[in-house]
């Protein structure tokens, strides 16, 4: 390793324990890493690997005294940060080391203006006056690429888009020109096109200001693009480290190889063009009225879904792709008749869009949904068997307790879980296992049509691949029709026969998956693909909506 520049941060044998009552969990065990001036170092690992906890230890941001450090030192300019008095630590936080968090929705205070939030760090650390702060804030907002910053000074966070909020967070972090910027999953909550822009912004700013970046991420694509060195973490320890190029070209550790191979792969089963049509819509519209005035007259509509037609055949997958706010989830809910819509929805030759909820009930067993968040979609108060059998209780009330129990066992076996686990509670399972339970709940009714609403987005990369394999297996076995909703183009490519690209409620482009991915026609689709697969931002007006 070259040693041209000085080491900025040296972490030695860092351990972090969390204590809850009598139980102690060892989140980080004897981790050592170093960051040199002006370089980008990545901590990579799946959720629970201790990467965020390690990084937050540098800032001493953990929930002490529940968290403790049984061993380790963190040297920053020769001083051990873990032993520093709190007052000195405060002088370092936000001034010499700063941090950008994952969730731009919650890391800004909703009650303060942008000017106040960016200006706060300047006031605290530099004691500047109001006028000086304003010039600085304008300067910073320009630097992070917010257009017309004068108009944005008095905006509140809810008036900004996700990408803009993350830019403001970066402006706050960079206000005092820190020597180290900790970026904790800075783009995970953002759309792919915005993600590419933010990453480019970080690179530009690093070149300009010369700070070091500690990048925490689970996304190896980002690591490859951004970092010069990588530390791979697993279960609280570093399993492999080295220069990015070396690690990607020649991984030594089995876990690293597993991570690198974990991307969802494979192709969907061949589409049979003569298969019967399961679901069909014609010019489907979901408009939410905007009412104003005393009499609540409808003055305009939010066109969540505006004129979408689709046709889905048995045994095939239709991928719906789009960024947040494009109306893809709304479309899925409308097809399930969970929200009101206009326009015909034909399911198995029945027009179900006018059915009352009672008439819908017997059809529900044929139409199922799997949601994105495996933590939110399972009731924490019911055991696994209670969750899975719920549909049976309604749809097949003639089953005895024994029969239901057998059905639940079989459903768990089908999603490759231990049937003995059915009396446990959801919190005892990992994210991937929970998603399997959610799939089992949908599959036990033996549906013909399943809406998959971002079923892999909340999962780690290697778990995503397993879930994709499982879904493909179930499809082949049962000749299922999937409506696969996702913003993740890699997963869509692994599952879909046919793809619809949506934007602002309208269909931008549609076609077979092959054609969309290999020969996109519209600028928007091209920009989406380059952002997703090459992390390249396209500054065309067709893309930027922030």
């Amino acid at each position, binding site marked *: 390793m070259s040693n041209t520049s000085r080491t900025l941060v040296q972490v030695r044998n860092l351990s972090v324990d969390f204590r*809850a009552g009598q139980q102690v969990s060892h989140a980080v065990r004897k981790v050592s890493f170093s960051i040199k001036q002006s370089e980008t170092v990545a901590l990579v690992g799946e959720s629970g690997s201790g990467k965020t906890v390690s990084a937050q230890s540098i800032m001493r941001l953990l929930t002490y005294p*529940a968290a403790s450090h049984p061993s380790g030192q963190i040297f920053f300019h020769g001083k051990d940060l873990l032993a520093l008095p709190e007052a000195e630590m405060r002088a370092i936080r936000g001034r010499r080391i700063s941090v950008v968090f994952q969730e731009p929705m919650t890391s800004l205070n909703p009650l303060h203006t942008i000017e106040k939030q960016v200006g706060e760090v300047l006031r605290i650390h530099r004691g500047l006056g109001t006028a000086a702060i304003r010039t600085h804030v304008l300067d910073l907002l320009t630097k992070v690429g917010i257009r017309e910053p004068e108009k944005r000074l008095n905006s509140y966070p809810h008036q900004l888009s996700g990408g803009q909020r993350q830019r403001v967070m970066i402006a706050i972090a960079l206000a005092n020109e820190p020597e180290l910027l900790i970026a904790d999953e800075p783009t995970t909550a953002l759309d792919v096109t915005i993600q590419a822009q933010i990453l480019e912004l970080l690179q530009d700013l690093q070149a300009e200001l010369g700070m070091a970046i500690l990048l925490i991420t689970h996304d190896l694509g980002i690591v490859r693009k951004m970092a010069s060195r990588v530390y791979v973490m697993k279960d609280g320890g570093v399993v492999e480290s080295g220069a990015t190029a070396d690690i990607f070209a020649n991984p030594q550790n089995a876990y690293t190889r597993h991570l690198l191979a974990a991307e969802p792969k494979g192709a969907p089963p061949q589409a049979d063009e003569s298969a019967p049509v399961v679901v069909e819509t014609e010019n489907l519209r979901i408009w939410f009225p905007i009412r104003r005035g005393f009499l609540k007259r409808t003055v305009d509509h939010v066109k969540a879904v505006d004129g979408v037609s689709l046709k889905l055949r048995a045994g095939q997958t239709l991928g719906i792709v789009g960024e947040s706010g494009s109306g893809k989830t709304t479309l899925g*809910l409308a097809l*399930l008749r*969970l929200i009101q819509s206009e326009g015909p929805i034909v399911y198995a030759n029945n027009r179900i869009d006018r059915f009352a909820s009672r008439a*819908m*009930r*017997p059809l*529900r*067993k044929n*139409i*199922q*949904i799997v*949601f*994105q*968040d495996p933590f*939110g*979609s*399972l*009731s*924490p*108060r*019911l*055991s696994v068997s209670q969750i899975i059998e*719920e*549909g049976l209780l*309604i*749809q097949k009330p003639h089953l005895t*307790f*024994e029969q239901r*129990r057998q059905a639940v066992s079989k459903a768990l076996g089908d999603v490759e879980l231990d049937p*003995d*686990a059915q*009396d*446990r*509670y959801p*919190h005892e399972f990992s994210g991937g296992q929970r998603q399997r339970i*959610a799939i089992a*709940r949908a599959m036990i*009714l033996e549906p013909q049509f399943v809406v998959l609403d971002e079923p892999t987005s909340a999962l780690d990369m290697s778990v995503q691949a397993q879930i994709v394999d499982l879904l493909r297996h179930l499809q082949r076995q049962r000749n299922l029709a999937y409506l696969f909703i996702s913003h993740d183009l890699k997963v869509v490519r692994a599952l879909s026969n046919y793809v619809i690209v949506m934007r602002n409620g309208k269909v931008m482009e549609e076609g077979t998956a092959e054609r969309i991915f290999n020969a996109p026609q519209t600028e928007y689709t091209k920009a989406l693909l380059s952002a997703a697969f090459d992390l390249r931002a396209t500054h065309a007006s067709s893309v930027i909506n922030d």
Partner: protein
Amino acid sequence: MEPHVYRNSANRNFYSARSNFMSRLARQFQLTPISLRRWENFKANRRGYWSLWIFVVLFFLALFAELIANNKPIVASYKGEILFPVLIDYPEEKFGGFLAVTDYKDPLISEEITANGWMLWPLIRHSYSSSNNDYPRRQNQAGECLGFPSPPPWASNMALCQSPADQVARYKTIGNRNWLGTDDQGRDVVARIIYGFRISVLFGLILTVLASIIGIAVGAIQGYFGGMTDLVGQRFLEIWSSMPYLYILIIISSILIPGFWTLLFVMLAFSWTSLVGVVRAEFLRGRNFEYIRAARALGLSNTTIMFKHLLPNAMVATLTYLPFQLTGAITALTALDFLGLGMPPGSPSLGELLKQGKDNLQAPWLGLAAFFSVAALLSLLVFIGEAVRDALDPRKTFE
């Protein structure tokens, strides 16, 4: 914490035959891991835990107040016949008297019974409504005999008035003592506190349960359906809860004679609103959870979703409020009794005792006894409430 997963392979065959039945049975009685942890958290709060036990024991004892403090023997034997005067009113003719209901403390009757059998008296031989005719009264320094209220025997060094020897002997019997003195009608303060405690707690419990049922139902409907239902409900609540219920109660009590149930229903009419907001908020939050959507996609009816999926979420907030609701209900009843608008005259009540204390400042045992019993009751409930609140606090539960 590990719910019955049968790991032991030797037992497996034996269990698998019954596992369905057993697990179904077990599920009925088993606390979920979350509830279990909350119960552990509650137990860890020693003060709250002990308060709960003390309260439960006191309430249980008070439920059987007739067997603890009564002016009738629990069991008596008269001429070979076993009698249960606590349960059955025997006419005095039976013992050679003439009243319709026997006064067992009448010297003639009690001598008659003890001569022909025996009597098993409760610990305290006074009921809440009986005055102690055996108390010889106290006399002041001028030698005048004073009336009721009379002080506790251990707290007064004033001489007793001149009385027949047999009356003094009866007065000195342990069971006949007025440990906390008598009130202004010669009724035993201890007996009145025991019965008053029972009425207060029962009133509070019934009011809390009924108010919770109505409040949860209204809050659930408003929160789940939202929209116009919610809007109308909220406006109604605002109007309803801005009505001054004390004044309405005063007006009603001038028309109806306020009894236990009248009071209960009038107070119920105004106290159900307090839970609506909490439950409504929980349902509003919960109805967009993905597992609620999943349940709708499975074809569950609204009622099932509300009971099975949403209500358990709202129960946490509700349970946190319950002990404080109980405290509020008891305080309200005490306040009404204190103002003389509460229970009908003669009923035992802590508030009425407080009022007597206020009216008879020369008899501090009345005010002090009432104050300490109300304070102890409310403190117990507040301690329990605090412990429940902390045990259900998600930050403490999931840290």
